[in-house]
């Protein structure tokens, strides 16, 4: 015998799956954008830019599905919070796709430039950010509040890296003004990564709301716009 509201449960589970798929897609956009930047790979950078249309379609598709469930299923309590959470989270994930495109564009701009130093910290920061994204989405589908806390703590580490890079690159620019034209775009990439981490904290905050019903800022100093 079917459970009460089984088809609605299945549609809610499908939302989780679609969101995970979108998250994985955007994480790959970010990975490719970073690879394009490090390896001066223009064609890979162009792939990332083209992929953004797909990410946008996923965003709209999930939002449409949420609207339909709100209209047709009259969700309440946990179900309502889940759908509200997914609608907010896709906006953050979509924004991460946009930042990946910004990084890919930077890769194209710097394609012919030999870097003034090997890129080490920025790719490391990107790896950490991708791990955070994966954890935040896992936290969402598994309703895991421990992972939420972990993501928030990791954001502190990202912030420290960003400030470290800011100091370091500023110093280099003062000493070697001739590298400013590549140092500024690279500094911006570090800034994009720091912003991506803030969007991931937003995702974590929504998971916390979904589970506890309390809307609160978990990392007050790190709010994304």
């Amino acid at each position, binding site marked *: 015998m079917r459970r*009460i509201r089984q088809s609605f449960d299945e549609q809610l589970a499908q939302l989780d799956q679609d969101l995970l798929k979108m998250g994985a897609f955007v994480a790959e956009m970010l990975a490719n954008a970073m690879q394009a930047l490090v390896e001066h790979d223009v064609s890979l950078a162009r792939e990332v830019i083209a992929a953004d249309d797909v990410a946008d379609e996923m965003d709209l598709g999930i939002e449409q599905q949420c609207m339909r469930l709100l209209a047709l299923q009259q969700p*309440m*309590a946990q179900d309502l919070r889940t759908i509200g959470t997914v609608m907010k989270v896709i906006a953050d994930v979509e924004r991460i796709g946009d930042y990946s495109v910004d990084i890919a564009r930077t890769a194209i701009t710097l394609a012919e430039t030999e870097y003034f130093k090997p890129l080490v910290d920025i790719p490391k920061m990107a790896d950490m950010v991708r791990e955070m994204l994966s954890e935040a989405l896992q936290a969402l589908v598994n309703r895991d509040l421990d992972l939420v806390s972990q993501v928030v703590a990791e954001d502190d580490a990202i912030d420290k890296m960003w400030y470290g890079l800011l100091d370091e690159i500023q110093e280099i620019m003062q000493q070697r003004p001739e590298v400013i034209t590549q140092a500024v775009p690279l500094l911006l990439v570090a800034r994009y990564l720091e912003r991506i981490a803030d969007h991931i904290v937003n995702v974590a905050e929504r998971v916390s709301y979904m589970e506890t019903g309390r809307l609160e800022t978990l990392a007050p100093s790190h709010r994304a716009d």
Partner: protein
Amino acid sequence: MFYGDFQAIKEVTIAVPARRITALIGPSGCGKSSFLRCLNRMNDVIEGARVEGDVLLDGRNIYDSRTDVVELRKRVGMVFQRPNPFPVSIYANVAYGPRLHGIPDRSRLDAIVEKSLRAAALWDEVKDKLRQTATELSGGQQQRLCIARVLAVEPEVVLMDEPCSALDPTATFRIEELMTELMADYTIIIVTHNMYQASRVSQFTGFFLLGELIEYDHTPKIFENPQDQRTDDYVRGRFG
């Protein structure tokens, strides 16, 4: 509250705020309608029914032996599931209560009838046919007439037992809108099977299950973030 040996409602403590709409929800047989009937002693007329505990209205226990039950039901009116107008004219339906309470004066009755029908958002539809038999009105109009009939005796509290369950969606929304208007002057308690109706119209919601009041809180809290798992299961439609 008992029906013979069967305890239908167990140790319910609830503070109903004045001039607000309080909704009582819960599955069939949970005791919400029995509880509503305790509030104006409608259970008195049911054989074998008895009530323990107090129901305080302005600090006085309505189950006190000195309570005048007719006077109580004037102060605490009731609207039922099926519109039940008397098979007389629209005018006579509304004037029935005031006449019973000793107002014979024609011009005063006219004023009460108009005021009550206006308050029940029915005046414009019936003002030219007050002598028409009430049973010729549509279901939604009949229910608003029943509300006008309750309002005509100037109650303080209006109890509504599934007032929209026999009505179509448009008539239902009309009644809901009317309830919101009436809230300025009356304390309304509504029992409803339709939890979406509870979420739309009420400020406070109580969830009953097997004769117990499981949770009672502000309506948004009950429907967004209830504290009891049983409430959560019920409002999400996962009950049973």
